[in-house]
């Protein structure tokens, strides 16, 4: 297939995944700010949402204060923020449009319908209720797109490139959620394991739809180390870094087998996966969660570049 087609398929999925992630951040942040202050309302939630989204710099330039209105505006409809939900969906659709013939009509339909509906949302003044509906809608767009890809695409290289986009983006997002919550949100004078901490970690789980899963797996009250275990190492948890890399490695191997040639991206993914398999959560905490996450995000980006060099250019 054309390298450009593969590249676009990969980015369509990444952007849809990112839009969903932004909606999840906003949803969780709204929930967190609704808590009474002594349960977690530290006042830094909106700043933290911006950090989690990875666009502090752009936000600082566009707005002064990180309050609900500014942050919601910036992360949803702001046309100047390349990573706003609006622009993610626009980019996804634009990439999809460029390679329409490589998408199934169901996938195109999901994106195109989303784009048309988005314009309707953009025009309405939103109260909190409408905003919550909007966030739910963004998640449903991602589900519809993902589901139609899963159900309708031929299992060939187009599908594998599209999946690679999903899992690389998801790995990045999960890592960011963990990192920012651990270091930005918790005020210095607050005790690790205190009630504030508890609610914030619960938020982390909620952001990735993992609260129920957590209880099923650990049958314990929410603790940072177990949350990290779930989201980093637990392969049964579909958003965990280990699960993402299991998929990345699998799809890269399928590509390598089909094309009859292995390359640097296959080796790199396998190495990261092996690293995640041979690590215990205690080691990570000992080494420093933040350091671990930072290294992971760098590695993940590096894999993105390797895939680009090997296949997409």
């Amino acid at each position, binding site marked *: *297939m*054309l390298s450009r087609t593969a590249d676009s398929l990969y980015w369509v999925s990444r952007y849809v995944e990112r839009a969903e992630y932004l909606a999840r951040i906003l949803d969780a942040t709204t929930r967190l700010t609704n808590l009474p202050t002594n349960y977690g309302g530290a006042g830094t939630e909106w700043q933290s949402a911006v950090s989690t989204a990875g666009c502090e710099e752009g936000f600082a330039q566009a707005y002064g204060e990180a309050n609900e209105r500014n942050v919601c505006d910036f992360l949803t409809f702001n046309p100047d923020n390349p990573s706003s939900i609006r622009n993610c969906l626009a980019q996804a659709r634009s990439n999809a449009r460029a*390679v329409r013939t490589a998408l199934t009509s169901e996938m*195109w339909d999901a994106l195109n319908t989303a784009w048309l509906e988005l314009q309707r949302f953009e025009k309405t003044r939103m109260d909190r209720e409408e905003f919550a509906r909007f966030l739910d809608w963004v998640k449903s767009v991602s589900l519809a797109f993902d589901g139609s890809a899963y159900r309708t695409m031929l299992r060939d*290289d187009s599908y594998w490139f599209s999946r690679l986009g999903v899992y690389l983006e998801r790995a990045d997002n999960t890592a960011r959620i963990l990192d920012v919550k651990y270091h930005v949100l918790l005020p210095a004078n607050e005790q690790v394991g205190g009630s504030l901490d508890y609610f914030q970690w619960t938020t982390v789980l909620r952001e990735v739809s993992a609260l129920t899963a957590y209880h099923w797996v650990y049958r314990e009250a929410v603790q940072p180390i177990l949350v990290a275990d779930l989201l980093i190492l637990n392969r049964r948890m579909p958003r965990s870094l280990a699960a993402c890399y299991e998929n990345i490695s699998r799809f890269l191997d399928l590509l390598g087998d089909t094309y009859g040639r292995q390359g640097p991206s296959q080796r790199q993914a396998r190495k990261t996966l092996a690293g995640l398999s041979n690590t215990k959560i205690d080691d990570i905490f000992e080494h420093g969660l933040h350091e671990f996450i930072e290294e992971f995000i760098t590695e993940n980006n590096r894999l993105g570049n390797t895939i680009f060099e090997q296949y997409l250019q």
Partner: protein
Amino acid sequence: MVAFDEMTGSGAELRSAYTALDRWLKETPAETLALRRSQAELFFRRIGITFAVYGDEESTERLIPFDIIPRVLTKPEWEKLEKGLRQRVTALNMFLADVYGPKECLKAGIIPPDLVYRNACYQLEMVDFKVPHGIYCHIAGIDVVRVDSDTFYVLEDNARTPSGVSYMLENREVMLRLFPELFATHRVAPVDNYPDRLLATLRSVAPRSASSDPTICLLTPGQYNSAFYEHSFLADKLGIELVEGSDLLVKDDVVYMRTTQGPKRVDVIYRRIDDDFLDPLVFRSDSILGVPGIVGAYKAGNVTLCNAIGTGVADDKAVYSYMPEIVKFYTGEEPILKNVPTFRCREPEANAYVLDNLEKLVVKEVNGSGGYGMLVGPHANKAQIETFRRKLKAQPEGFIAQPTLALSTCPTFVASGVAPRHVDLRPYVLSGANGITCVPGGLTRVALKEGSLVVNSSQGGGTKDTWVLDA
């Protein structure tokens, strides 16, 4: 000026092709028609048929309005038209082979040499180059208009990269979905074999060095081009790769596409990029849409470009006025399709007449297309007429003029109900190594504004499904 109506002729009769349709129109309440129209629009929007209008920042994507009432031709009407189209396209290809080869028509004085040599679309690169299988214009879209029950005029020969065929196909698809009952009462000749015919045409002109299963791709300027939807639609229907310039590379005069498995050789390129942007090494050096070296590969005989480079010299509006002579010269037959009487403003007498009658005439730029740069005298205001008067005096050779034609009308569903609107027709004619084919019908364009004669989608025109009745 009362125009010929496709359904009622001069107004009193009911023409045979339209009997069943007329009954259906009378039986169907306006609300039902309105509902079906909105269903059709929803369908088009969802599948993403959109059309970009240049210079219209607000809407990079806009729908071409679709009218749900079909335009109907009887089989004999179509057969005559088709014969005329084959003759015309045969002549166009022979003319191109001649002006880039022996130049017999110039020697015989059929057409003034400067119209060829000084034509911006005459490509010196192509002189004495033998195109694969001798075919220049593989895909032609001949715009015809009808003025009475027997007479079709050719309005324009589109020999470069004619667009619109996706609308022909999608219009039929929508009609089949929305009005199955109409197809039960009419025997409508199908058009959905067009992609197969096109693919066969493209395959037939592959270089002789190519394998029996040549690699074909469609070269698009990209998704911001007004016809991008059509490019992706056709690539999909043909099962070929849709490539942009940056997807192709040329090495040792061979064209390759960049794939996830490395470079892959390309044999035939259905290009939807204009000559000027095709190769920055040969044409406009600032073009980022094209492929450096592609012309070299073409001339080395390693790849076929469809259409060939330089076909624009044949559909130029000044050359157009000589088409009846050109058809006769190459085919030895009387032209079956007429030309619209045309004043060549380059001729002083003609220009004097044109200047005196601007308010009655349609004036067109020789190199314009898409309804841009055109004066429709009867609908123009004083200022517009004066602007054209100045242009005509300054550069008469840049223009032609034609009487305003009474384009035929066809019943159309508009705000006030069903009313006659002017239409034209663009049939698509394919020329390959195995001959000429033409699917029945084509794209009917309709001027939705009452009295308007401009059917171009860039100027607010719409489209209709076109039916050729099989019995």
